[in-house]
């Protein structure tokens, strides 16, 4: 009972606080307003510049895709979208994206956990190594796999041994996608884990919990939103990857072409409407991803 009383006391004591902060923010608002009245012109000017810049640089390209896609009418659009090569390309894109997300999720979780929860030498170096794919031109990412598994590659024998072709085949497309999106998920999780510290995990370890149990019960709830966020970014980049995939795919139509490659082929064949129609699928996916990204970011902040 004594406790309940104490608790009530707390509540009543904390009540005046919000009011206090309210007046404080009001005061600072007044100061701000005074300070800003003269800058109203500047404000409008800057907003207009920003909106104009975004309209020209970001929105117009989107509009151009949609309008060009529908230029020859809806039937032509549907024909291009439901074309069997388009469907095959979409399937391959989804396949490569899913595999990349799965592998990078596994890697991201293990890497971020290792870096944030243990003390070891060369930690900073490891972080830099993980970031390498960010710094590399996608074309070079494709090149390194040709140099490894291609006709002149030192590991060609290995690929033959496994009975698969890697270069100019589906595995090449998949591996290129994994490479370019490699750091995405670990990058999203790591700051969250670093900020969280390792006290909770140490406390659990002192009580004798296993590593897996600690991760599942204690660490995972902290990172779930960051993980989802990373998965979204990773999917966006994976489905849109062009440079690395184009080097490795060999453009075997219907076999190793992803959606972006299919767009390129159509465009180079001067089949512009079809190219934009297929692009519109990717635009829709991109917009969906942006919306999901914003929702998750909002949740993450909470």
């Amino acid at each position, binding site marked *: 009972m004594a406790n309940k009383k104490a608790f009530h006391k707390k509540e009543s004591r904390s009540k005046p606080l919000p009011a206090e902060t309210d007046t404080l923010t009001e005061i600072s608002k007044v100061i701000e307003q005074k300070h800003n009245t003269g800058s109203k012109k500047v404000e409008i000017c800057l907003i207009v510049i920003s909106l104009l810049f975004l309209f020209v640089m970001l929105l117009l390209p989107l509009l151009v895709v949609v309008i060009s896609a529908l230029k020859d009418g809806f039937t032509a659009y549907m024909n291009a979208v439901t074309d069997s090569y388009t469907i095959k390309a979409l399937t391959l894109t989804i396949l490569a994206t899913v595999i990349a997300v799965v592998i990078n999720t596994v890697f991201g979780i293990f890497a971020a956990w290792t870096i944030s929860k243990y003390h070891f030498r060369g930690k900073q170096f490891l972080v830099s190594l993980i970031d390498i794919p960010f710094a590399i031109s996608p074309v070079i990412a494709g090149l390194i796999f040709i140099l490894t598994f291609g006709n002149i590659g030192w590991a060609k024998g290995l690929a033959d041994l496994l009975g698969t072709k890697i270069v100019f085949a589906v595995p090449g497309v998949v591996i290129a996608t994994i490479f370019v999106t490699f750091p995405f998920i670990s990058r999203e999780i790591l700051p969250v884990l670093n900020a969280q510290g390792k006290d909770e995990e140490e406390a659990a370890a002192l009580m004798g*919990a296993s590593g897996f149990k600690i991760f599942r019960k*204690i660490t995972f*709830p902290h990172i779930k939103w960051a993980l989802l966020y990373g998965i979204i970014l990773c999917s966006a980049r994976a489905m849109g990857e062009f440079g690395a995939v184009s080097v490795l795919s060999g453009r075997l139509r219907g076999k190793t072409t992803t959606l972006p490659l299919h767009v390129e082929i159509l465009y180079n064949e001067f089949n512009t409407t079809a190219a934009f129609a297929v692009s519109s699928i990717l635009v829709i996916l991109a917009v969906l991803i942006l919306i999901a990204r914003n929702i998750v970011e909002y949740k993450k902040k909470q």
Partner: protein
Amino acid sequence: MYVELKHIYKTFDGFHASDDVSFGIQKGNLVALLGPSGSGKTTILRMIAGLDVPNSGEIIIDNVVVNDIPGSKRGIGFVFQNYALFRYMTVFDNIAFGLEVQKVKKPVIKNRVKELLKLIGLEDLGGRYPNQLSGGQRQRVAFARALAPNPHLLLLDEPFAAIDAKVRKELRTWLREMISQVGVTSIFVTHDQEEAIEVADEIIVTNKGKVEQIGTPIDIYHNPKTLFVAQFIGQSTIINNHRTLKDFNVNEDCSAAVLRPRNIKLFGKNDADSITGGQNGTVVDTSFRGDYMEIKVKIDDIVLIAFRDLEEPSLSVGEKIKVTIKQLHLFSE
């Protein structure tokens, strides 16, 4: 000795966190590891818990060298400085976690957690999450969580640091009572001498990775062994040229003397008592400290701090007074 450290050395990147640390702790005692920040007290605690590993030396708990035994098998409970409560588990699940890990049966866990919740006076809050609790409540939960698996040794890292001053005093008394009720040997780390004196049966004073002194709070206050301890525990004035003070022109080779305010008595011109001997001093500054007055007195070129009861006639700045000194602590470092 229940817990014993023998010649512990520990360095972090060349920094000596523990430099030949040795001490022992009796079973059932509540011991404070007291020292300024960076003195290596937390490192000692973490090494006893198995969170850090000493470079050399032995840690013995209950007659077993535990250096190679992981923290989870040492039979300890640990309360982290910021409690490290599992943020995504309820209070109930937090307290139950240690038992769950040991595969204790569900009904047993339930009873034990309820018992602990009652002990810490939070019976109704088992379903809450840590961020719905006040700082004091969190600390209680952290305490209960550490106690749940019945540890033989309880370690607390700055248990009151994250709590605001007002609640801190209440919690100190509470924690002391709880620990004596449970009867578990406990070590807590603190940088607050008042806290250590008030709560602990025994204090281990650390400084720069070394143990300066071990003893009961009273013993340490009255007989500081080093200049550092004298300064760190209780208020004091350090005097380098104590020979200028009359009655204390001892010919010992001492570089510094420490003078406690309580050991100085002041005689003003309006006082009922008066004294024939004593030294002549001038009041330099007076300030009100709530329960008493703090007076700065100048004797020759030495400025001393003395306390004076509020009932005594007030002294004014510039007043010539007589000063007697009961005790000086001399150190030869």
